[in-house]
């Protein structure tokens, strides 16, 4: 029902351009500026065609055709701006029914994880049984993370290869760590317990990537996912704690003691199920919470820099650098791991096309200070090994510090070339993702070989 047929064409192309824009809007990989840029191109092309004598609608058709198939183009954008895609909503275009199905899958796997932690009780391994604390401590990641991995296997449609991979890694890890328990020393078992989660988490990463850890973009996504996952999990744990406390209190008011139920059912099952649910939440961004990891990284980077550098200066001034005691050394190493985590957060949450900012320089300072602290720790460990001989703990510490040394040196080098404008930020990202297998390989070595050697 067009009132003025002469005018209709103008309205028509304008609305067509808007439709074209709207189609692009639906893709999370493109932000408004990108769409403006593409529209500007479309209009330039249309004007050129109109000058050649084409009608408006013809010009639109040809110009749109020349821009290309929008699905192909947006896929290309998604490759380049993976972080952006991740920030909005993973897998654009997923319908409500798909989301509901995902929720259902996540719930099923959460329940599976909750059941899994109660299964050993069927075989007499109750929480208060003898040796139960060791048993649950070394298996804790195996109750929950494989189910999170399976959720991604389903979601990424990895089919049988995915199921087989997760199952075989989980079973192999379970056999290995429980088999060692019979003969390995407490020290090596403790080391294995600390390192096993790294391996299992990497397994989650491999299925999370959906392409078996091949593309750089997916690896960065997984790092972002890891950062947000920790935050979500802590939030859920706090909420769960409050809820449990209230439940306990309410029931005790009416004279019923439910502490046994809370201790042996609600807390362990809830903690396991929450792993899968956190993963699903981060993935679907159901909550309205903005990405927290970059915010935290920005808040804590200056603080850690200040703390580390004042510590370093004190050590050097007082001359206590080479006589570090065992406890201090453990503390130092833990702190270096936290700093590494902070750097990981900061790098993976940064928009790589932004120019150098003050924050990047601060990051470089943090990395360099951490590097110096690491050298100090290395010296202390080497000294201890030299003086008091080789033990599993010292070798583990030595290896970790060496790996950190290489990792931090890489960060320092790439940050400084980036700040000097000699390289783009992507080199730094690549360094980060390419180095991840090194951590995992070291963890594998500690878990598999240490109990046999020491």
């Amino acid at each position, binding site marked *: 029902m067009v009132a003025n047929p002469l005018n209709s064409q103008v309205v028509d192309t304008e609305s067509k351009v808007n439709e074209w824009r709207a189609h692009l809007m639906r893709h999370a990989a493109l932000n408004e500026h*990108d769409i*403006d*840029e593409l529209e*500007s191109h479309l209009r330039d092309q249309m004007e050129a065609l109109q000058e050649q004598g084409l009608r408006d609608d013809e010009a639109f058709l040809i110009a749109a055709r020349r821009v290309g198939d929008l699905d192909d183009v947006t896929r*290309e954008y998604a490759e380049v701006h993976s972080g952006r895609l991740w920030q909005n909503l993973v897998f654009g275009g997923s319908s409500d029914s798909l989301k509901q199905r995902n929720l259902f899958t996540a719930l099923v796997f959460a329940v599976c994880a909750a059941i899994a932690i109660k299964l050993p009780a069927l075989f007499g391994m109750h929480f208060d049984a003898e040796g139960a604390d060791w048993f649950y401590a070394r298996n804790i990641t195996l109750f929950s993370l494989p189910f999170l991995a399976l959720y991604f296997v389903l979601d990424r449609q990895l089919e049988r290869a995915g199921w087989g991979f997760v199952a075989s890694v989980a079973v192999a890890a379970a056999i290995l760590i429980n088999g060692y328990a019979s003969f390995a020393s407490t020290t090596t078992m403790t080391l294995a317990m600390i390192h096993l989660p790294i391996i299992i988490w990497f397994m989650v990463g491999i299925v999370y990537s959906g392409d078996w850890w091949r593309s750089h973009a997916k690896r960065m996504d997984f790092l972002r996912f890891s950062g947000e996952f920790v935050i979500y999990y802590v939030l859920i744990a706090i909420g769960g704690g409050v809820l449990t406390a209230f439940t306990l209190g309410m029931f005790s008011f009416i004279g019923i003691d439910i502490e046994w139920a809370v201790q042996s059912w609600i807390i362990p099952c809830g903690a396991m199920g929450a792993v899968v649910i956190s993963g699903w939440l981060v993935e679907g961004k159901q909550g309205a919470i903005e990405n927290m990891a970059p915010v935290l990284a920005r808040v804590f980077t200056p603080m850690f820099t200040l703390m580390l550098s004042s510590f370093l200066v004190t050590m050097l001034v007082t001359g206590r650098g080479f006589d570090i005691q065992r406890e201090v050394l453990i503390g130092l190493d833990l702190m270096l791991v936290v700093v590494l985590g902070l750097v990981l957060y900061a790098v993976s949450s940064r928009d790589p096309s932004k120019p150098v900012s003050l924050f990047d320089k601060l990051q470089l300072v943090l990395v360099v200070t951490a590097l110096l602290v690491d050298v100090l720790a290395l010296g202390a460990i080497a000294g201890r090994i030299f003086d008091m001989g080789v033990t599993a703990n010292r070798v583990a510490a030595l290896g970790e510090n060496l790996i950190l040394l290489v990792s931090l040196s890489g960060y320092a080098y790439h940050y400084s070339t980036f700040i000097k404008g000699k*390289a783009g930020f992507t080199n730094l990202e690549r360094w980060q993702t390419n180095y991840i297998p090194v951590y995992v390989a070291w963890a594998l070595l500690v878990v598999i070989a240490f109990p046999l050697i020491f």
Partner: protein
Amino acid sequence: MNLSKDLMAASSTPLVLGIIAEGETYGYEIVKRVEQLSGGALNWTDGMLYPLLHRLEQQGVLESRWRVASDTGRKRKYYAITELGRRTLQEQQQQWQLINAALNRIWHDMTLNPQRSDDNGCQPA
């Protein structure tokens, strides 16, 4: 003539860098310039140029800014080459010249003695 996809992909970066090195410019102009330079043989899907530009920006070889164009009054995103970009371009230029020279030599030889390829000879003449 249709160019192979691989060749298009490989040549797009030095081409785009070269064009932007001539002076600050925007997407549509780049596409026009490529067409003109190749006599119409290089026909890109226009939309694919932008992700490439963004990737180059992430690598630090380009920088961009929004500016109102004097001719249309519309806002456009202009790209300029950075110092790092100039160096990258220079490297790529050398690489392509190397390949170009090698190809020219072998084709020149082929036209001189066309049988050469039969007597399993791959020695240089």
